[in-house]
């Protein structure tokens, strides 16, 4: 009997890098609860932590190695979660948890994170944000297959995924919780499914009405499409050599908003291509199918990217094609979303409820601790061990675990995290309550977000407010329209 673990004959092809960010845009939900942090990755969507959704999407695609990167203060909570029942539900994933820098240092963008951990990434990798919720119709395997095919046939170096934003009909009006995400314009080519240019809203001296398209780009791709309806999912499948390029460009902090637009420019600017050609070459571990492609009957003559010289070197006709491919996911096939700000978060939860209510065949099972006289609509989701007292009305809401909902409470369209207490007679509409929030009796909250551990006093009325612990401790007057928008609107870094 062979006791030694046999070396795998085939090394796995990809490593997944899951970036769990701080979640600044989801404050106050992600602010500290007392001293404990509430990581964004563990915020539940449909009563399942966000990170579980990402890992569940990752698993069927056959990737086994996962590098999970989180801010240092969150390490313990995430390690607990990953080590406990998450690993049981994802048996094939080997999750390696790493932390990075000082969370208050807002200049730590996704690009810097990848640079820091470049030594742990030795093959082609997939970058995933922790807040991307894919629809069931989009498989990670599809994205991976596209990358595999394109990098083998014409040397594409990165495949990005863009999705059509969900229809705007049900967006809440107004900016109660901070500004909406502004749409980014991109230029892409439909025939070859390549991403050509990303317009970055540059705050410095920008002529906001002009988009410059270079002639070299136009001559390579005469038929372009310009759209601002697509949003970046921040899911990138990259060739290993992209990391080398990233190392060179230290100034580019953010992957999606800084590095990627720059990368798109390499393909059509000959000078840049020459400069970076050597960086891109040595990592092609896959066999070059140049000879085969030359003989292929459907091959376009003259666009063969590789040419074997007489002395065995591989030189190129036009330079290696450093194309950035993209996959466009239409809204009609299922809604994808990123829980990057509070609106999206609420939206995604609502969508999960709709899906769950559609999937449900019969009446919801009788849950103990839920009083028989409580009215819970079919499209709500109640977590385990939650106690709902009689005559409570819950509609279209997600209620977390271990909550207590008092008598006659009315909860409509809310997301309530774990361990909350809503006392009798309280009315909540369109709110997001952080963990362990306590809402006093007969309080009324309309479209509020509370920090974890906040206590709303009995009879308090709040509307469109972000309620944070600091407000509570001051015990001063509670204004309407209180918001910390100045913190949010100035942010340039992209949060994952």
């Amino acid at each position, binding site marked *: 009997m062979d006791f030694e673990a046999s070396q795998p*004959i*085939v090394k796995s*092809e990809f490593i997944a890098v899951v970036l769990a960010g701080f979640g600044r845009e989801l404050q106050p939900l992600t602010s500290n609860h007392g001293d404990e942090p509430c990581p964004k990755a563990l915020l539940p969507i449909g009563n399942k932590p966000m990170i579980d959704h990402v890992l569940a999407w990752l698993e069927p695609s056959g990737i086994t190695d996962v590098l999970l990167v989180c801010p240092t203060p969150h390490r313990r909570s995430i390690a607990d979660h990953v080590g406990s029942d998450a690993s049981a539900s994802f048996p094939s994933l080997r999750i390696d948890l790493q932390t990075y820098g000082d969370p208050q240092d807002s200049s730590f963008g996704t690009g810097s994170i990848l640079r820091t951990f470049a030594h742990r990434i030795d093959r082609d990798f997939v970058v995933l944000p922790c807040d991307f919720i894919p629809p069931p119709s989009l498989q990670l395997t599809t994205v991976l297959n596209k990358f595999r095919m394109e990098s*083998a*046939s014409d040397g594409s170096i990165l495949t990005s995924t863009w999705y059509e934003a969900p229809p705007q009909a049900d967006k809440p009006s107004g900016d109660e919780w901070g500004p909406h995400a502004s749409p980014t314009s991109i230029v892409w080519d439909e025939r070859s499914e390549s991403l050509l240019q990303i317009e970055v809203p540059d705050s410095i001296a920008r002529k906001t009405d002009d988009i410059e398209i270079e002639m070299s780009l136009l001559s390579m791709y005469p038929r372009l499409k310009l759209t601002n309806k697509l949003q970046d999912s921040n899911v990138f499948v990259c060739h290993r050599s992209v990391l080398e390029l990233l190392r060179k460009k230290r100034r580019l902090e953010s992957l999606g908003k800084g590095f990627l637009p720059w990368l798109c420019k390499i393909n059509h600017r000959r000078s840049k291509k020459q400069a970076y050609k050597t960086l891109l070459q040595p990592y092609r571990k896959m066999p070059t*199918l140049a000879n*085969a492609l030359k*003989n292929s009957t*459907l091959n*376009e003559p003259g666009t063969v990217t590789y040419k074997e010289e007489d002395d065995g070197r591989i030189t190129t006709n036009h330079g290696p094609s450093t194309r950035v491919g993209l996959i466009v996911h239409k809204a009609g096939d299922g809604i994808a979303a990123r829980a990057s700000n509070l609106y999206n978060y609420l939206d995604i939860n609502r969508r999960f409820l709709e899906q769950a209510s559609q999937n449900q065949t019969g009446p919801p099972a009788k849950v103990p601790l839920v009083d028989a006289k409580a009215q819970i609509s079919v499209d709500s989701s109640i977590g385990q061990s939650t106690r709902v007292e009689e005559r409570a009305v819950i509609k279209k809401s997600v209620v977390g675990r271990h909550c207590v909902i008092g008598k006659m409470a009315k909860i409509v369209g809310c997301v309530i995290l774990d361990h909350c207490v809503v006392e009798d007679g309280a009315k909540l509409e369109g709110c997001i309550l952080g963990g362990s929030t306590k809402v006093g009796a007969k309080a009324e909250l309309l479209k509020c977000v509370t920090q974890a551990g906040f206590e709303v006093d009995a009879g308090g009325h709040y509307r469109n407010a972000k309620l944070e612990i600091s407000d509570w401790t001051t015990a001063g007057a509670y204004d309407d329209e209180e918001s910390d928008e100045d913190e949010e609107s100035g942010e340039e870094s992209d949060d994952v």
Partner: protein
Amino acid sequence: MSSEQPHQTPQQGRESSQPLRSPKTMTKAERRELQEKQRAAKASAKASGQANKPATKQPEGGGEKSSGKPSGKQGSGGGPSTQAQTLHQRRGSRVGGDIPRLGGGPGGNIVSDLSSRSINPRGVRIFSHFGLQQKSGAGKGLIHPAVVRLGLLFSNFQITGANARCLATLITFKHVIQDYTTPRNNTLTRHLMNHLSAQISHLVAARPMSVTMGNAIRQLKVEISGVDIDLPEQDAKESLCEKIDNYIQERITVAGQVIAQSAGFKIKNGDVLLTYARSSVVEQVLLQAHKEGKSFSVYVVDSRPMLEGKKLLAALTSAGIPCTYLLLSAIGSVIAEVSTVFIGAHSLHSNGAVHSRAGTALVSMMAKQHSIPVVVCCETYKISETVQLDSFTKNELGPMNGAFSIFPISIPRESLATENTANLEILNPLYDLTPPRNITAVVTEVGVIPPTSIGTIHMALGRMI
């Protein structure tokens, strides 16, 4: 016809008014209605997830045409009697696992495109015995990533053509062998064979293997089994890679050059040549002849859906050869002016038949009728031991949409017939068979031979494959 036609029954009353009349007394139309209802009921019962029942006997209304089997069996064309039905069904079940079944039977090989076909139980019977290949999963962990990529390239028709596919396969297998390490308590010869077999089945699942791939792999297996057991692993791997390189060099690259030379003798100044679709060998022949300074013109005949001729046209015109491009339907108008026809082959069979891109048979037949010599350019490694008499038993259906993106984007997709609809089914066979009587000569690297001697080549050279 087994059931009797009750001609003497008057056309009394509609069926709906007397639903309990025995089928024998119903009119033909009524029996058909009844059958349709039963079939619809069965289909809906199936859709609610019932187990797959074997095909039930149709009610005795066997007089109608096309009483399909509601178990989802393909192909209920023609007007079978009940005996023919059961016979067909039995034959169908013998043919094996690639018959699609609604709801997934033990064969398990549900082909996604065909499921849309089987909605219509009166589907087309022709070619129903092979369907489109299903894309296999991302690999069971043992599939080398290079092989995964190759499978994707195959199934998306990025690499097409017998030579290209074989080259790609061999290059990839060289890579696989280089990355391979023998596990403990195993010998290289035995375990590598198993390892490669797993990779091969992945490729076959992506797209059926071509004869060239098959021959090359067979040769590779012979070499592997001949590896000395005492050889250290690295040496064994290197020798295998070297053998693969030699095979590519001898039987593909150099063979192509020799064929270009020999076929070049058949081209004289002022010739008008004709070729069909795109063969890498014929392309080499033409380019070589042009480089030697001969002046000739070429008719490039092309057909949908692959439209490979366009790529050949681009290659020839950029070299400076005067060309004319036409579709297959126009060949009658130009064939009289042609002096020689050059075609390529996917494979040659022992009876002299040429298995090649669909449409080649037509071209060679036309040429023969006009007494124009038809020259097939083909390396010896494309020779297959089998005998083939028609293009129905062994063929491949190409994808009907997407993969060959031939229509300009400006044409709205809705106006094109790219999907199966209720009354329209699209079949796209990729190959056809040219009988030996239409072929004048076959140019191989070992000489110019008549087609009927193809089966003797290997024997004459004293080699196995």
